[in-house]
């Protein structure tokens, strides 16, 4: 079976995000870069699928040179090879452009199942998987918490508001991973050693024949609105404090 996992490199969740004074982006200095946490679930599921059914896992990334480290992490977890789409032209590319680049690379290789994360925790747009599926002409199932391979189709659980759906879909298809899908493994030391020798094919926009678009563009980054300083409610005993809180929520904030 030919399995593809798309991984993005993102700032660690601990990162404090500071907007550049001119609003053109965020300050990247001091940021620790990691594999998007949702992509870890995708890579893990890909590896489990391979371990059970045989086949090969290919990691695909669009990103600057530093993103190679994230590809190597996935290879160290057990993936077989990588494709790194690395081109300064992709700075400021939008989700459509990113998906187009991924599609161009993936079209050139056999693919039965593609895993993406349900969203990247930096841009949070949660679009790339679905656009990629459309560009490849295959069905998608997004935000999946349980995955089962059943011969020529997959059966997955997708939680929605107030329900869970059991969905069936034939191969080839694209699945986006949600937390709960599995517990991703850590790369072992031998895994890390082996990963150094695994092949990673580096490509640019021209060699893939994609033009970089920005149909939707972040014109300005702005810091979040500051919250006014809150009130600490004092009182002699819990009952007094609780009563005062209830009063404030009702009379001042008017939310209960």
């Amino acid at each position, binding site marked *: 079976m030919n399995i593809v996992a798309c991984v993005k490199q993102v700032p660690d969740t601990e990162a404090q995000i500071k907007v550049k004074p001119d609003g053109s982006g965020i300050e990247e200095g001091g940021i620790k870069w990691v594999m998007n946490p949702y992509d870890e679930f995708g890579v893990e599921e890909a590896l489990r699928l391979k371990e059970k059914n045989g086949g090969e896992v290919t990691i695909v990334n669009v990103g600057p040179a530093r993103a190679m480290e994230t590809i190597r992490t996935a290879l160290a977890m057990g993936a077989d090879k990588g494709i790194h789409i690395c081109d300064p032209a992709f700075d400021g590319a939008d989700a459509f452009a990113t998906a187009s680049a991924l599609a161009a690379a993936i079209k050139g290789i056999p693919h039965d199942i593609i895993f993406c994360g349900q969203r990247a925790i930096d841009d*949070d747009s949660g679009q790339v998987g679905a656009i990629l599926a*459309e560009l490849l002409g295959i*069905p998608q*199932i997004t935000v999946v918490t349980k995955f089962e391979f059943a011969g020529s189709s997959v059966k997955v659980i997708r939680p929605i508001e*107030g329900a869970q*759906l059991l969905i*069936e879909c034939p191969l080839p298809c694209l699945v986006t991973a949600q937390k709960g899908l599995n517990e991703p493994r850590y790369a072992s030391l031998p895994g890390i050693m082996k990963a150094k020798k695994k092949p990673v094919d580096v490509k640019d926009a021209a060699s893939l024949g994609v033009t970089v678009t920005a149909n939707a563009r*972040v014109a300005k*980054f702005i810091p979040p609105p500051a919250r006014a300083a809150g009130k600490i409610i004092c009182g002699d005993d819990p009952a007094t404090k609780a009563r005062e809180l209830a009063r404030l929520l009702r009379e001042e*904030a008017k939310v209960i």
Partner: protein
Amino acid sequence: MAKGVWIVAEQRDGAFRKISFELASTARKLADVLGEEVCAVLCGSGIEGIAGQLGKYGVDRVFVADSPALEPYTTDAHAAAVAKVVKENDPAILLLGASTQGKDLSARLVGKLVTGLATDCTDVKIADGKLLAIRPMYAGKCFGEVVFSTFPQMASLRPNVFPAVENAKAGAVVKFDPALDAGQLKTKVLEVQKDTSGKADLTEANMIVSGGRGMKGPEGYAILEELAAVLGATVGASRAAVDAGWRPQSDQVGQTGKIVSPNLYIACGVSGAIQHLAGMSSSKIIVAINKDAEAPIFTKADYGIVDDLFKIIPEFTQECKKLLA
């Protein structure tokens, strides 16, 4: 020339989801600035009868595709139907809900319509005749102002943020044939396992009572459940509580859980780690109850109580009961 503000309305089992009215009202506001029409797309089976309700919230025309293949929702069928009617009518703006369904559908439509989408927006406006969409990025650690160079300019709106305002318009029904090709409908919903609690999902809840490691164990949540029942709130949790197995994954609030924006968020025994704050900072009113006065959650709280939550919550529940009686 692309014209008109369109929404994709969302219904389940023949009833509109609240987000549909939020979309309609927001579209009306934008369309009034542009002096254009508001149209809705409604897909499902046996739903023609409800279409007119959208008129109440400012929709001029409702394009309805009524087919058994459109119920329940699948990406294949709905994306094909919506893409068809949108291509035929060339709207300038297309709004969807940032609900589970809207997120799934909007992204697929970007691929079909070859355009741009701003996801999970908390504000949208018209600037220089075009859409300007404001959306949290990095789970709310910063915001982006998104502009578009293609049509339709697409945005998905975060549930519970945009008010639904009555503003009666015609809501005229226009039926269209989704022209679905059975060969293209690949995904099948085999089973819908409904959550029978009757509680609003965290992403749609008006009020959330959230508990962290300070709840001490799964039993601790009983007092939160009780408070939630009095307020009509939904119970949430920090990742520490979820990872400890005290609460289900679906309860997790934060950067790697649900991003929520209720009117009232009460954090109990939650320290306020950066990943948790990222998921709930856009709540309108935040209350923190924590025995540690230095806990970072207090930096985001409108009201804070520094005390033992096991003493405060039962008292607070009684107070709320009295007030709401």
